[in-house]
């Protein structure tokens, strides 16, 4: 069992190495790609910062506090985006019929999908998340940080990244039936990322509940941020709940992996 996991990881590492090497063949292209991507995500963030010139605060949240939330969301979405790009492009694999090939190979199908695409430019969002975090550190008081808060931050990033990955997977599962990725799942993934840049309480109640109890992104990103800032958690949750984000992420990931298995059993090929 353990040997299997080890073998799988080595294979995955090999997949990634191949992808990276092929990107280094086109150095100029890679540089342009990274530059464009950084500027693209950077400009979105600059727009967010600019709002705080005419306005002093966002529903009592100061810039530094919003930036902390942003950095958590950016970093975790970025991580999910880096490692889950293969899942995100799953519709292409289905449409081209390459999925049949994956099924024939004596390796984990999930792993092959995961390793089928890996682009370096996607690290841009992670880099951006870290830079925004540094900015938040400067703006927030130093005394804020204690050991438990550092811990809750790490748990939050890992959990939110896991939840985003699981969401990508659900989007891929839908492809088994629709072939195309529907724009609606993008609304939940990219919409969730966009939404979680700002405190949950600004949104309407239905949206708040949806992104807490059904798609628990708020659980992963917003709850830990509230804990760090000493703000009350939404829906009257006691403060320690912020530490439970990993449990939430694991449950959500487990449910999406169940769906994935059902999807594979359902798959009949696109038959072109």
């Amino acid at each position, binding site marked *: 069992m353990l040997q299997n996991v080890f073998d799988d990881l080595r294979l995955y590492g090999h997949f990634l190495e191949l992808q990276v090497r092929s990107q280094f063949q086109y150095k100029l292209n890679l540089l342009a790609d990274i530059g464009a991507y950084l*500027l693209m995500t950077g400009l979105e963030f600059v727009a967010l910062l*600019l709002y705080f010139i*005419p306005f002093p605060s966002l529903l009592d949240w100061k810039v530094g506090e919003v930036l902390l939330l942003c950095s958590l969301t950016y970093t975790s979405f970025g991580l999910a985006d880096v490692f889950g790009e293969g899942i995100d492009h799953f519709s292409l694999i289905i449409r081209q019929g390459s999925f049949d090939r994956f099924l024939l190979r004596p390796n984990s199908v999930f792993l092959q999908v995961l390793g089928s695409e890996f682009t370096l430019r996607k690290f841009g969002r992670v880099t951006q998340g870290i830079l925004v975090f540094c900015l938040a550190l400067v703006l927030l008081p130093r005394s804020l940080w204690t050991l438990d808060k550092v811990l809750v931050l790490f748990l939050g990033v890992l959990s939110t990244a896991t939840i985003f990955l699981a969401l990508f997977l659900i989007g891929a599962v839908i492809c088994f039936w629709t072939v195309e990725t529907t724009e609606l799942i993008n609304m939940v993934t990219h919409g969730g990322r966009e939404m979680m840049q700002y405190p949950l309480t600004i949104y309407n109640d239905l949206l708040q509940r949806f992104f807490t109890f059904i798609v628990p992104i708020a659980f992963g990103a917003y709850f830990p941020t509230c804990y760090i800032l000493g703000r009350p958690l939404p829906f009257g949750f006691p403060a320690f709940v912020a530490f439970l984000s990993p449990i939430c992420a694991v449950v959500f990931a487990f449910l999406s992996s169940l769906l994935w298995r059902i999807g594979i059993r359902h798959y009949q090929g696109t038959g072109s």
Partner: protein
Amino acid sequence: MFPFYFHVALASFRRQLAYRWANIAGLITNTFFGSLFSFVIIALHHARQSVDGYTVTDTLRYTWLAQALLMVVMPFAWYDLMNTIRTGEVVSDLSKPCDFCWYWFSRELGRSLYYTLFRGVPIYIAGTLLFNLGFPAGSLQLLIFVLAFLLAIVLGIAYRYLYNIIAFWIVEARAMVWLAVTVALFFAGSYIPLYFLPGWLYGLAQVLPFNGLMNFPIQVLLGKVSPAQMGWAFVSLLCWSVGMILVMRFLTARATRRVIVQGG
């Protein structure tokens, strides 16, 4: 020759009609994002009622109008022309007995009309229902808005065409396209209403052609533009359109003189 271009536009309009479900999904997505931005704007205004004479309602209207215009003037992943260059299909378009620029222009006019009717209008209605926007303008303002909007469509098509024909020189130009679109969206006012920008940046935004894509038509409809400013903006945007179309024709002529077709 004119009936030919009219039919090209009509065909492209009809082609869009086939993607009914994609359009509905897009409508839901645009409405969702419009709602997110609206909640942010409402929350920001908790601390300050109005900025430079713009109230919450103004900014909400601005946001929804920008969402409504988005797919008309600046469709995000528009690689249509670029893809024909990459695959070599462009040869068949070039050998058609018509002007290559005007052929694409008509195609995109048809598409723009489709998105105006089936994306733009429904989005603004959705926003009105969700956030009680009302309709900002009187009939004169509406008339001027229509003129500004037509200019926005022309500018949008010319810009799109320009960043697509890069593909004649650079085969893998996707990074350039993202950059071109992001910068345009920022300076059009899609990320943040331009009047929230610091003075010098606002000044810069107003002389760029992207002002005409969203900010200018929207501000006209909101009734925030004085007649003098309006005249100046129309002159400058007309110059931009003519200039961009000239560059478009010049580059096309250069590219087609030495075209080496990709693919087989």
